[in-house]
């Protein structure tokens, strides 16, 4: 599922939005604040703030289906990764540092293209973050155009 090109893309300043659905309840949304992409398997760790996204976090559990949309706002390149949660745990210091770096880097990028006001500090991080490990089973293109919605072909 994850080839080198997609791994590089996921490690860039991409917007990360996850979605999880509970039985009989509306699907819930949460923003990711940093991704750790495994090199040796189709697994991604997503950092998410429980304080900001309590609805989505309440539905996270091992084995639950999860969708993650990632988008590079400068190019509109976007993908949706679908799979199941393999592991759920509290973020440690390294993962919180990763999230802070992500917030700084992505905030600067968004400000540089005028999406966020300069120096707005629009996003913040609370030390209550969870790390969701997602085993990716499918990747779909979401970049606007003819391929939108179609399965992404793995590139050799």
């Amino acid at each position: 599922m994850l080839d080198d090109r997609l791994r590089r893309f996921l490690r860039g300043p991409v917007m990360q939005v996850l979605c999880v659905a509970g039985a009989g309840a509306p699907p819930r949304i949460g923003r990711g604040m940093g991704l750790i992409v495994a090199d040796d398997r189709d697994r991604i760790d997503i950092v998410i703030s429980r304080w900001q996204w309590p609805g989505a976090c309440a539905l996270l559990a091992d084995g639950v289906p999860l969708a993650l949309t990632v988008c590079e706002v400068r190019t509109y390149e976007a993908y949706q990764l679908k799979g199941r949660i393999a592991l759920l745990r509290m973020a440690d210091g390294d993962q919180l540092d990763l999230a802070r770096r992500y917030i700084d880097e992505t905030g600067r990028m968004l400000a540089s293209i005028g999406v966020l006001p300069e120096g707005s500090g629009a996003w913040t991080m609370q030390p209550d973050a969870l790390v969701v490990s997602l085993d990716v089973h499918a990747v779909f293109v979401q970049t606007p155009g003819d391929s939108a919605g179609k399965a992404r072909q793995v590139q050799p």
Partner: protein
Amino acid sequence: MTPALRELSACFEGIIPALVATAAADGTPNVSYLSQVTLIDDDHIGLTNQFLTKTSANLAENPQATVLLVDGCTCAQYLLGVRYVRYEESGALFERMAAQIEAGSALVGMAGIMRLRRIDVFRVDSIETVPFTVSLTDAPPRRRASLEAVARVVQAIGVQADVGSIVDATLRGLEAELDIGHSLILQLMHERLVTVGSHGYPAGGIGSEVAVAEGLIGIADKSAQVIRINELSRAFRFSQAVSGSADDENRSRSIRLPGLPDALSQIAVPMLVHGQVQGVLFAESARRMAFDRDDEAALVLVASQAAAAIWLAESLVADDGAATTPASAQAGGGPGLKVQYYRVDDSIFFDGDYVIKGIAGRLLYYMLEQYVTAGTVEFSNRALRLDTSLRLPEFKTNLETRLLLLRRRLDEKQFPVRLIQLGRGRLGIDCRCTPELSVIEG
């Protein structure tokens, strides 16, 4: 405290994309970006559907969804619990959103790719504010459009009798009463929109043209819909900011459209008379989110009044003024001015500097020729209209408007030939030079 849907107006400007989350019957979730979310009423929103195949399939199985909205000013985020109600593939709402998306996608170089397929309508059951740790504010708020202020602008337009005064009253009124400092009026002439009035720009750009369906202004004309963009991409601003020069004007025989190099917000309002677009009222600002729904409503009122007033002024002048051209004087005096008239496109150059082309160019050459050969210094609109050598369009000549743009172009460039409004339907030519006419065929 839970905000009301109408309080989230800054979320519906499309500055920071919204997302919609749905789930299939088996619980498989899906989350997709949306290009536009629109407020329909106090309880309903519309989502534009271009590529949302999976979203549509999920909604057929499970109508419950969640929408994430982001305030374009403060970056505050809101989660809306929604239920799918219906879709629309035509009608006023659909047409308005389709034009908005066409303009937005054209601005980011994706014209034709992001075509609206349908609008999905949802009832909003709940609104949650995503917790925030910092309070964010944009620049100080601009004065809001009040009904009284709009009435003053409309009234100021209503007392004017000629096209020039109507254009001035409109654009000056926007700044004085609505705090809109950069604006243009373009009128439709021969399937081109031509700038006849500008306010707030170093270069007036009178006579500059926009093709129908080109950019924000052209799409507003083609669709007869208001187009409002409150966050222009930097790429677009850069392309707009490429500056023209006098040399370019002379080579291309086209005048550069005025524009703010750092514009973040733009709005183009079609000027309608009897349901037909006569022109476009355009405004822009270096502020983010400069034009909200109230501003849009205010500009629609002002544009309607200006359009009707211009139409009426043109119609009244058509029947006004003497058919003869009484005043004449000895031509000549002052330094020589080489006037080159290119018959191929009716363009005119003064000492090598581009002046204007098209019917306005033809009119100018005609008046100069009359001045040089017969010493005519005063012209009536009616006489111009009746002179078949000018080959004016039989229907809707826009003569008054064309003469206005010609007069202002000459003033703006400070040419030694000027036109002076002598009264309704009459104008004079003022030559502080000795024109030396030459016609270039082909």
